[in-house]
């Protein structure tokens, strides 16, 4: 019988990717750093990579009886609450909310410090059984470093990034972990026991369907968690931004009729060479 796991998933929120995301200079709402235009009014979703991590955590937790999942999320409380109305229906977890900015311009170092400090204070969390999950990337600027720093601060040295699968081995003999490496291949590692950090790529699990019964059960802890969420001090530290702008999209279209495929291929190869 494998030892029950304590899985903590770090997951922030990001603006719905279908929205118009336009960087804006510091303003009254975001005086310290740039933000997105109308950022607070944009509907948000759980960061897609973190969402994969959450679904994998729930899946693993279901396979190892007695395990428990926490979702630690740093973001504006009101926005977190909206996101929870969907995410709470996907998988059983307990929310640990930290009230703070979710902007893509937030410094990863400060975010990691806030997350680690919060995780350390989770009541009943057994660090010896801890698997720290999160996204290896993020849909908000994607520094790709926050989770690693959280792990470091918690003193977890076993770190895996670009994870696509974790499987509990028979008779509690640790875990098999599959990480993405170059060339579209995976590296398989064996983890003898927690603690460990797993930065998830996309995994293989589909997004679970909404289950309102799960949502109602989660809400018993989510609403109180949102109410007692502490504000994280994130200002003052980190990089300063001289300017922010969207990457320029340049479209160069030529309409050429009856060009032979060989010629098209030659042109593409030449263009790639220029790049």
């Amino acid at each position: 019988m494998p030892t029950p796991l304590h899985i903590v998933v770090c997951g922030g929120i990001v603006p719905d990717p279908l929205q118009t995301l336009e960087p804006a200079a510091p303003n009254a709402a975001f005086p310290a750093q740039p933000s997105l235009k109308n950022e607070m009014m944009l509907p948000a979703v759980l960061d897609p990579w973190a969402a994969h991590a959450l679904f994998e955590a729930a899946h693993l937790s279901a396979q190892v009886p007695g395990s428990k999942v926490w979702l630690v999320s740093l973001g504006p409380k009101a926005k977190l609450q909206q996101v929870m109305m969907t995410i709470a229906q996907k998988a059983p977890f307990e929310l640990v909310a930290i009230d703070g900015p979710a902007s893509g311009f937030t410094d990863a170092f400060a975010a990691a410090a806030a997350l680690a400090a919060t995780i350390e204070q989770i009541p009943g969390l057994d660090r010896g059984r801890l698997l720290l999950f999160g996204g290896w990337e993020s849909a908000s600027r994607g520094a790709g470093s926050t989770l690693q720093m959280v792990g470091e601060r918690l003193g977890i040295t076993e770190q895996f990034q670009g994870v696509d699968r974790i499987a509990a081995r028979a008779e509690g003999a640790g875990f098999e972990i599959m990480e993405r490496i170059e060339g579209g291949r995976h590296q398989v590692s064996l983890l003898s026991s927690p603690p460990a950090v797993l930065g998830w790529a996309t995994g293989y699990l589909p997004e679970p369907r909404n289950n309102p019964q799960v949502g109602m059960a989660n809400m018993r802890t989510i609403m109180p968690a949102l109410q007692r969420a502490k504000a994280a001090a994130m200002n003052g530290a980190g990089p300063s931004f001289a300017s922010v702008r969207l990457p320029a999209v340049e479209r160069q279209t030529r309409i050429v009729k009856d060009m032979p495929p060989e010629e098209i291929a030659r042109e593409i190869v030449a263009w790639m060479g220029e790049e």
Partner: protein
Amino acid sequence: MGLAVKEAKTEYLRALPGDDVRQILWRFADRFDLQMLVQSARAVARGPVARLVAQGARHTHDWTPEKRTLLQAFDESGITSVFLEPSQGGFIEGPKNLALALVAFELAWVDAGAATGSLAGFLALSPIHERGTPEQRDYYMSRCAPAQPGESREPWRGAFCLTEPLPYVGVETGLLGGKVRVAEWKPGEEPVLEVNKRGRFITNAAFANFVTAAVESDDPRIKGTCMVILEEDDPGTFDHGTPTRKLVHQLSSTGDPIFNLKVPASRMVGGYSIKDGVIVPRYSHGEIIEAVFRRTRVTVGIMTSAKLLSAIEPVIRYQRTRFRGGSIASPGSPRYELGLQLKEDAVERLVEVWATGEASASLGFAAARVFDQLDPLERRRDEVLAERKLSGTAAIKARRQLQKDALEYLSGKRPDLADEVTIQYAILDSVANVLCPACKLWNTGHGAQMMREAVSLMGGYGITEDCPGFLGHKWMDAQLEATYEGPEAVQRRQLSITMADDVFLAQFREWIREMRRVANDKPGTGACALATAMQMWLWTLHHLLHSTDANGQKLYQGARQGVTFPLADALCWLLASRCQILDAIELERKGPENPALAEGLPGLTAFLTDLCHVQAARAAGEVGRICASLVFGYNRHPAWDTEGCAACYQADDLEAMEALIPGIAALARGYVDVIESDGSHVAKAGPCVRSAGLDQFSRLRSRMDGCLTGSQLAKDRAAEALTKVMIPEALDYPA
């Protein structure tokens, strides 16, 4: 103290209203169960439902395996179990009218056929829920609950089978196309009934496992009418019938089933008793459907509201991108950035569509909330009345007294009645009896017209299958929503009775005062124009109730639908506009509590206030037109005859008076009709109408015209906001 001139910065609508805004507007910001339900229903609507529509599933009226997948999606997302109590497999405690309305809204945002399909199952259960015995409720509700983890069963699906006799598809619910007889009745045993029923246009017909069917007695041993539950495995014929060749709502199954079944008498909804050897159903079919439809019609109205609001984003995107990609607009130029939005007409018409959508949604959700309040009150009232054991004349007397007490309570004379359940029920019931038909009638009827407007804003694209947001489909679907669950005439008929109820009118008077107060605090809402229009409507109602036409016929009476129906239409405009204004005020009050809204709240409230003003002005205009035509239209126009000319000046008389009052002859010609010495007169239909006794109406009409001041400026501001609002890069469902 000096006054500093401070130039206020104009705040515009920054982004389309999101969930946090809607939760405040429609009063479920404190209901996380409903917020989750919205997300669940939205995921189904913008996922499986939208994909089916985009793949062309609406091209056939047959119930296909692809369409059937929706049932599973409804089950898995919790939509199927919304109607159920937690003990029956549901997850929402208490009344569910608002919950059902939100589900209908979300599904109809993409496709109302899907919404209808989900609601039809609830409709089948509604007779059992409202009037069934406890055993019937437990049995059928739990079977309709989706399987829980570990269970391997298919939930039952139901259909509601009312149906008027073929070939008429009329509105008379007193006529039924189904018969029930006693098939077998052994002494000391439960009677067995034989039910013959042919359904027409029955939703969920293709796959229903059970049906709640309305039937009338064809046997002297059964009294009157009833509703009876038929199951697929009952002995006899349970034929799902042929699919209806409908042009709309193709994602729901509709057919003409045929039933010839033997069922135990205990399947009568609500049970029965036996008196003198006759089976007496506890409830007639009329009593049951009254309880059912008064709730479910609200959700139908809300479906059309969803269509209108769902049209905004695709139309804005179409307008802005209309000239992009061509040679006539270069990036950065106004034409490239704003496209058709450079033209005032394009954006102002969209403002009207949006204002209508907001008003109709406000009315619909207000009605749903009223029913949520009414449901528990109704049960408590039933208990109180059961304890009093009143019947016959005593019951009639008690009802009259109740009405009297309710009026006294509303007038403030009897504050001691505040906790009296029967009084509170009567007061709220009188509002529900108006809001429900008003919502069904106005949201769908006027909504269908405005949906046409939305389609027209997309140009030729609007009536293609490629139109983003499926607007063409939605336009056609709106017409069905105006028809099913009681066509417009049924709603107008109901309103013509309920809107003249004294208890309702006492509250309506208070609503007029309420709108004046709102106007005082928030002048930009158009509440003042609305209050005047409400006053005019009330004046007109009283006038019509006590007046006769030119032939001496009473004006306000049941058969005089030319009088009662337009007045019912006029009331709907007022109610929708009032609800919209109240919602906007709620947002202004509660919005600042939500930090996520703080950034854009000034622009948002300014925009929604302008929409209120636009809609109030439109409502006032409609009410003025209708009331004027009713007040004046039934009087005979004076003719150039003896009677008509009696009120005119004679030229000879004026000449004689000229000697005494110089200038009167010329002056009089400017104000009154004058018959010249040779009997000639100005060329027109007759002497001008003297509105004896109608002066007050004329003053109101004139005042109301003045109240429209500023409404077009509000429309201009709202239209400008549409050119600045940020919209997503793409629609969040396939098209």
